[in-house]
């Protein structure tokens, strides 16, 4: 009986087409069944909650940037006016102007920016390559002591900077490898050949900074400590990069290299032509980390560059120098003490903005690789 009732009733039948009439439940009931059950409602609530949460957290992350941007347009008058809080009433570019053209002690903003860009770029490239090489060594080769060495890599990550800061500074201030310089100092120091050529190559950088002590070389106030640390995988957070590279290479199947060996490639050729092209996304990730952390790094820059060096300005110098006449003018033309202090803070704030903007631009182009690179690496190993 039931079968007969529920069987589809043929309304019209042609060669190509059949129109059938089902006994369907009404649309309202169907919609009710679909949307008014507990799992759908719970899912909907969860989705809305999830979205709002993400929105809220994004707000927390982005709010400082927003307030930085609006704050950077504030003028001295805005700080006197009590009604002005977040959005400036008298927007000016004063803070930008004073940073770009009016820093104390003739510190030039653009010069510092370019210097920092070159330094960060060079350091990031070197660190990416070095960490790639070292990570590959740890991932794909089994040799005696590799575990101990890797433990030391992790150890370098844990040591807080304060522990070694002074020692690092003195080490590079009196740089000497097992007394080689002491040995040579007798005759060679007055015209220490390789250093003279270096000085010729980078006159502005090394010109006055590089001083020869009696028995050692002063490498501070030059990029050499950065280069040495980057080349040996001891730079800022390099332990993390080595760890990431190692995990990435562990995920690369061994068969790939074995087939390359069989085809007659040596270890290095395999690395150059098979492994490196494969690991470009991961290397971009590391490069991005390295670049941005070097860009905003204060520890190594202040350790190796005394702020008194006038030949070579870097971004920390910008932060630490006050502005000249502009600030004086503002305080003279009316604003009381707190307002002037606020204006000064606004200038600092704009400095932060100017420093972060280049980074954000780089990040916009690379962020796809950042997430993808890490996901593809399967850091889990």
């Amino acid at each position, binding site marked *: 009986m039931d079968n007969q009732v529920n069987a589809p009733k043929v309304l019209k039948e042609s060669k190509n087409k059949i129109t059938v009439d089902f006994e369907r439940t009404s649309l309202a009931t169907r919609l009710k069944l679909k949307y008014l059950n507990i799992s759908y409602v719970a899912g909907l609530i969860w989705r809305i909650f999830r979205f709002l949460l*993400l929105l809220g957290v994004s707000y927390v992350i982005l709010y400082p940037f927003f307030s930085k941007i609006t704050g950077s347009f504030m003028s001295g008058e805005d700080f006197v006016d009590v009604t002005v809080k977040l959005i400036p009433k008298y927007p000016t570019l004063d803070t930008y102007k004073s940073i770009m053209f009016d820093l104390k002690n003739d510190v030039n903003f653009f010069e510092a920016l370019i210097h920092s860009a070159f330094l960060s770029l060079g350091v990031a490239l070197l660190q990416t390559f070095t960490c790639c090489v070292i990570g590959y060594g740890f991932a794909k080769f*089994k040799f005696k002591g590799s575990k101990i060495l890797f433990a030391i890599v992790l150890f370098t990550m844990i040591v807080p900077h*304060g522990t070694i800061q002074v020692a690092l500074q003195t080490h590079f201030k009196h740089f000497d490898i097992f007394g080689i310089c002491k040995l040579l100092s007798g005759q060679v120091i007055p015209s220490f050949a390789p250093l003279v050529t270096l000085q010729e190559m980078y006159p502005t950088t090394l010109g006055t900074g590089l001083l020869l002590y009696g028995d050692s070389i002063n490498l501070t106030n030059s990029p050499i400590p950065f280069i040495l640390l980057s080349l040996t995988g001891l730079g800022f957070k390099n332990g993390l990069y080595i760890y990431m590279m190692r995990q990435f290479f562990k995920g690369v199947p061994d068969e790939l290299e074995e087939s390359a060996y069989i085809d007659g490639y040596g270890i290095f050729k395999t690395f150059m032509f098979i492994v490196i092209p494969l690991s470009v996304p991961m290397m971009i990730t590391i490069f991005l980390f390295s670049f941005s952390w070097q860009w905003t790094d204060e520890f190594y820059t202040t350790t190796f560059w005394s702020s008194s060096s006038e030949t070579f300005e870097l971004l920390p110098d910008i932060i630490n120098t006050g502005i000249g006449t502009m600030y004086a003018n503002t305080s003279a033309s009316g604003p009381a003490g707190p307002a002037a202090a606020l204006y000064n803070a606004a200038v600092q704030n704009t400095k932060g903005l100017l420093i972060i903007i280049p980074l954000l631009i780089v990040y916009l182009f690379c962020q796809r690789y950042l997430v993808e690179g890490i996901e593809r690496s399967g850091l889990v190993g």
Partner: protein
Amino acid sequence: MSKAPKRRRAASLDKRKAMGGWLFVIPFVIGLIFIYFPVIYDSFRSTFIQVAKDKQEIFVGIENYQEALFTDPNFVTNLISGLKDMVVDIPSIVIFSLFIAVILNQKVLGRAVFRAIFFIPVICATGLMDSVEESASSLNDYMGDQSQGINTGEMDDGFSMSIDKITSLFESMQIGSGIAEFVVGAVNRVSGIIDRCGVQMLILLAALQSISPAIYESCSIDGATTWETFWKITLPMISPMILVATVYTVIDAFTSKNSSVMKYIDSVEQVNVQTAMAWIYFSVIIVLVIVVVIAMRAYVFYQRRDS
């Protein structure tokens, strides 16, 4: 350091590969021998000496450590309060980044945009920006009032009152003031916590991506709910990476320049005492990391031990 075999032709593949391994890591080895070990040695040695006025080094034994631990009135209290902060911060950072990673791993509207936003702190929240924030803090305070309207004072009181109320509510419910304090502390520092979650989020997101969808499929066929799947599958599968994220958080929290103890150490005048403090601090970190690893080891599930 093992010597590379001279006769290449006779070397077996294993030996050749071992040699290749050494060649690849040799930059690091050179760095260790010529830069890192001397620096560490120097730093360690300098905690046992003091420099006199005529630049002569005097060996003073453990005097610097005694100075740091017993004479200096602030170091130990600073260290303890720093540790207390960590107790709040570390679980909240790990849990929060796990939560966000799980959400970002699902299909959310505008996932790519949210991801891009969430990793901005990884790029921006570092040393230089901290010092900028510090010097511009008065401006931030000034502008921060905006969010609470014109009657700033009253609103402020309202907010802190509500927090007080919540705290007293928890206390009267006998849940334990410890938990309430923990929650209030976490809420008060939420933006700092979010700023420090970036790398952990990346690590956990990568771990989540590496779980095979087949496992989830078989679970849903067996009738497990999402909730059960999370506790029985997701959590055990990513537990090794939770351990890694936790260790990273501990290290990051301790070694970052704006942790209160680091700030205090930086402010100490005498270089040798400063270094001694840093070494004490370092040993505390090591002990804490070991404790965390041992404590979490019991709950970590390794799918393939050999890989």
